[in-house]
């Protein structure tokens, strides 16, 4: 990449590395202070730049990544307790609280709803596909 795209591209590279570190390691215990020092930022500077780049704090982003991963596992039918620890949360109550805050329903309710949807998709897939697409492609014949 050309270095003159932005005069502070070197800062962006370090912020993106920190974001990708969270993407790769969300399931582990992540200390955000460690990420900021690895990226050679003071904690305050790191928080400010991360928020500027992604519109949320590193901690908020980490929680979102963990909830997103939890949704994928719950959709597969994994047990709530297993999912909680698999995506890096310390306790089921805090996982449940954060999940509900983001999704509006508990992990258990989400899991049950997903199972029901999966069964419906298997039985009647064309209920989930706009008919204009199904018909024009001849899929529903």
């Amino acid at each position, binding site marked *: 990449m050309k270095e003159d795209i932005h005069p502070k591209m070197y800062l962006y590279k370090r912020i*993106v590395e920190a974001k990708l570190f969270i993407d790769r390691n969300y399931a582990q215990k992540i200390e955000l202070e460690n990420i900021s020092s690895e990226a050679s930022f003071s904690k305050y500077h790191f928080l400010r730049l991360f928020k500027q780049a992604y519109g949320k704090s590193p901690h908020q982003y980490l929680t979102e990544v963990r909830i997103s991963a939890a949704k994928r596992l719950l959709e597969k039918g994994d047990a709530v307790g297993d999912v909680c620890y698999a995506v890096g949360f310390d306790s089921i109550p805090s996982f449940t609280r954060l999940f509900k805050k983001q999704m509006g329903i508990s992990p258990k309710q989400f899991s049950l709803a997903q199972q029901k949807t999966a069964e419906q998709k298997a039985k009647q897939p064309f209920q989930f596909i706009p008919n204009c697409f199904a018909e024009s492609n001849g899929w529903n014949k």
Partner: protein
Amino acid sequence: MITKLSHASVYVLDQESARDFYVNKLGFDEKMKIPIGEDVFWLTVGPKGQSDLEITLMPINKGTMFSDEVSQQLSNLVQKGTFGFGVFECEDIYATYQEFKGKGVEFTKEPTEEFYGIEAMFKDDSGNWFSLVQAKKE
């Protein structure tokens, strides 16, 4: 009165490769993947944080409405980068550009100041192009 766009289609050469591009490179969520034939899926993705839009990754070749001849013509046009499908917005274009470049996304325009914000352009793995914009803050 139309209130919103819920589905939009992008024609792709290979659904599995397109899924990998949109999910693992652009960071989209997979919204639906329903088998509808041999190696053909109703496959939709969308940006995280926009739950009411599904982008359908439509296969051109297999089990679609197109004849073999039209499929071939359309595949060629897609590969040549004929079609631009839309504009994606991001919070910070330099961070997004840096991340996507690092993941191997091909850019045809580097971030550039425009009157509406800062814009870059990139191609998906099939050849469809998109604009990426950091909108000007009021």
